[in-house]
């Protein structure tokens, strides 16, 4: 081929593979409606999110320079985004120099193929995994299963989810939707050796998980473990894995071969920059001053840990996120999950309603950008609307991602796409808002409409509008749940009447009577 380097402009950023776990089967409103009906789930979520929210608040309050750290974290992430190609090449160089092997994966399939091949070449029938969002996103466990390799999740919550054949619903605590009684049932079902007299005390359940995984850790069958990483330091090639239980240390230390699948956005420019992120992440995430264990490793360490290290750098839709200058900050996320815990929508709907590995406010801006929003019936087209724009997420974000602004921007993109697609701009909302736009941009017509709203609505009895049959397409969503005030005399009619009275009387006017409504 005669590809000159100038061929680059023909390469376009690409969305994630459709096989990725980034899109549900139905839109958010319908999925949320169903989840909202589950009282147990509501209780579990409310308890868990309020607990972690208050823990976070108290440890963040301790840090006097928190806002300055956020500013630094945000700027560092912009530095990474702005210089991503150079930093990626620098990372590859540093990792290689430290004895690691770097692989590049354009999409979920390619990453799956690389990891599968590496595991098969080493004869692994089982691999141990450290909780990782990237491998969840690309459905790595399923890919490995197709090749006859069993992936065992070693994080307690991931284990619960895996044993229950469930899907994660939270970035940090994937089993947040399960309570202790449910977890006990799951364990009894899945662990044949478990003593049935076990109670639902979290300590006993954690002990059961320890025993279940202990032999696996010590034997490391096939001796391959798979992890993600929280940070990948470009200048030294250091990978940082932040965890609590010690399962991460087991997987990063005891196998012969370690494979880490890491999104291309996880870069931190320099080792010293960890001083910012290792303060921001634990306090935002688990609400601790520091998480119990953080492992920093660089390539292969002779006589200490794995003999082989493979780093798989993953695109899978990240380049598509980068393409939008207004939306690319979504890639700054360090997966702390603070935005989920404070989100009034997430707190009630739970993570499954978002249909993606990345739920909550950050998921609502990340998933649709990774997959694209390709049509009115694309479930991910509903995600940017899954927010009341209350702004709580932005306040807690350790790297200051302005999630509400990106949400509105993505709505704008969704509407623009519909407007530009022939025959796709006739939905109820499209028609209603086009009509409203015409009315609200013509002061005369609007004036008349406002003055007639009161008299027209007087055909409805009562003082407020109660439950309505579906006469107007938009209103039932409101009146199913709440009353609506009935328009009376508009303000402008009152104002006119007052002006008139003032003109005729020398003294300031009294309040007018209710019947002066004509324009």
């Amino acid at each position: 081929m005669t590809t000159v380097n100038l061929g680059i402009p023909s390469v376009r950023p690409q969305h994630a593979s459709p096989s990725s776990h980034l899109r549900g089967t139905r839109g958010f409103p319908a999925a949320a409606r169903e989840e909202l009906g589950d009282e147990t789930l509501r209780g579990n979520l409310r308890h868990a999110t309020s607990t972690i929210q208050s823990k976070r608040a108290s440890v963040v309050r301790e840090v006097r320079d928190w806002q300055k750290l956020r500013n630094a974290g945000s700027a560092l992430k912009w530095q990474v985004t702005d210089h991503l190609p150079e930093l990626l090449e620098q990372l590859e160089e540093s990792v290689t120099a430290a004895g690691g092997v770097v692989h590049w994966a354009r999409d979920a399939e390619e990453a799956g193929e690389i990891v599968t091949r590496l595991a098969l070449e080493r004869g692994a029938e089982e691999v141990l995994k450290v909780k990782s969002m990237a491998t969840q996103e690309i459905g790595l466990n399923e890919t490995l299963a197709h090749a006859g390799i069993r992936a065992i999740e070693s994080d307690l919550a991931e284990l619960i989810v895996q044993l229950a054949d469930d899907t994660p619903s939270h970035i940090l605590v994937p089993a947040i939707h399960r309570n202790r009684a449910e977890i006990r049932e799951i364990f009894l079902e899945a662990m044949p050796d478990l003593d049935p007299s076990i109670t639902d005390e979290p300590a006993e359940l954690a002990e059961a998980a320890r025993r279940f995984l202990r032999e696996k850790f010590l034997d490391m069958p096939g001796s391959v473990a798979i992890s993600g990483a929280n940070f990948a330091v470009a200048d030294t090639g250091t990978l940082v894995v932040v965890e609590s239980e010690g399962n991460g240390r087991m997987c990063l230390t005891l196998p012969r071969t370690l494979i880490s699948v890491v999104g291309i956005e996880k870069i931190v420019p320099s080792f010293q920059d960890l001083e910012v992120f290792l303060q921001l992440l634990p306090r935002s995430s688990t609400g601790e001053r520091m998480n119990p264990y953080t492992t920093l490793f660089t390539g292969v360490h002779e006589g200490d840990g794995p003999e082989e290290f493979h780093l798989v750098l993953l695109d899978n839709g990240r380049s598509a996120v980068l393409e939008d200058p207004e939306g690319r900050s979504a890639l700054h996320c360090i997966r702390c999950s603070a935005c989920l815990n404070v989100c009034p929508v997430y707190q009630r709907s739970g993570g499954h309603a978002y249909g993606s590995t990345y739920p909550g406010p950050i998921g609502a801006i990340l998933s649709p950008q990774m997959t694209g929003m390709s049509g009115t019936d694309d479930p991910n087209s509903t995600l940017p609307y899954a927010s009341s724009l209350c702004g709580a997420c932005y306040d807690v974000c350790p790297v200051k991602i302005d999630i509400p602004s990106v949400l509105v921007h993505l709505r704008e993109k969704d509407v623009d796409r519909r407007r530009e697609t022939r025959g796709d701009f006739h939905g109820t909302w499209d028609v209603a808002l086009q009509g409203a736009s015409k009315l609200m941009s013509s002061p005369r017509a609007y004036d008349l409409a406002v003055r007639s709203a009161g008299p027209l609505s007087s055909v409805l009895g009562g003082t407020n509008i109660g439950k309505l049959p579906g006469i107007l397409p938009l209103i039932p969503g409101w009146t199913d749940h709440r009353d609506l005030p009935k328009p009376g005399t508009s303000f402008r009619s009152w104002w006119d009447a007052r002006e008139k009275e003032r003109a005729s009387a020398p003294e300031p006017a009294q309040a007018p009577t209710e019947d002066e409504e004509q324009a």
Partner: protein
Amino acid sequence: MNEWTQERPVRTPGLSAKEEILARVRSALATPRRDEITEAQDVPRDYQRADDKQEQRTAPEKMRDVLVQRLEDYTAIVHRTTAAEAPAIIAAALGEARGVVVPSQLPEDWTSAVDAELLVDDGSASPHRLDALDAVLTGCHTAIAITGTIVLRGDGRSGRRAISLVPDHHVIVVEAEQVVLGVPKGIERMAEDPTAAWTMISGPSATSDIELSRVEGVHGPRRLEVVLIEPEPEPDPAPEAATDPASASTKESTA
């Protein structure tokens, strides 16, 4: 099937995955954002760094108080001692342990009072062998007071990572001069040898995965004990005003 399930990412023939990803990223970034590009020197560094006056001026004993308080918050057991008393305290911390693994270059007097059978690690013990031991005794590289974090480097004093992970009881000896106040100072010390195998430990293994309720001890050591070696306390100045404080404070520091 809806159209959105069909759309597959395109791969360009003739390009390696690396070339293609970098080209995609360059193409994406070609659309500029409204703000200026952020260079390394644009990152605001007005947060408390390693050279911050609080880090520099906080009295060492105060830092150690904070460290102890934070470690105890994580339910680690802390013993404050002096170099002279350390061997006895370490032996007591190891308690009933019969088999104890230690890294190859641990100061010898730390184990001088230990009764247990010592396995000086030469890198050959398998995870199963380590699992059969009762405890591990290590030193450390740095301790960060504000977060209650003890930093191990994969070296002769902290040992290779497996030995401080598999045994269920970990006793760490922290020396006064290893204690820093904040995370930036800790990272600065680590940055002198960034490519070492580092483990930062803040309390015993824990999980909050069940209803966010914290449970100590999952896969890592379930017991964490810290022996903090401090300078000999300065004699009370009131009755013995004639004592030279300098000699008192330096007496044990080279132990």
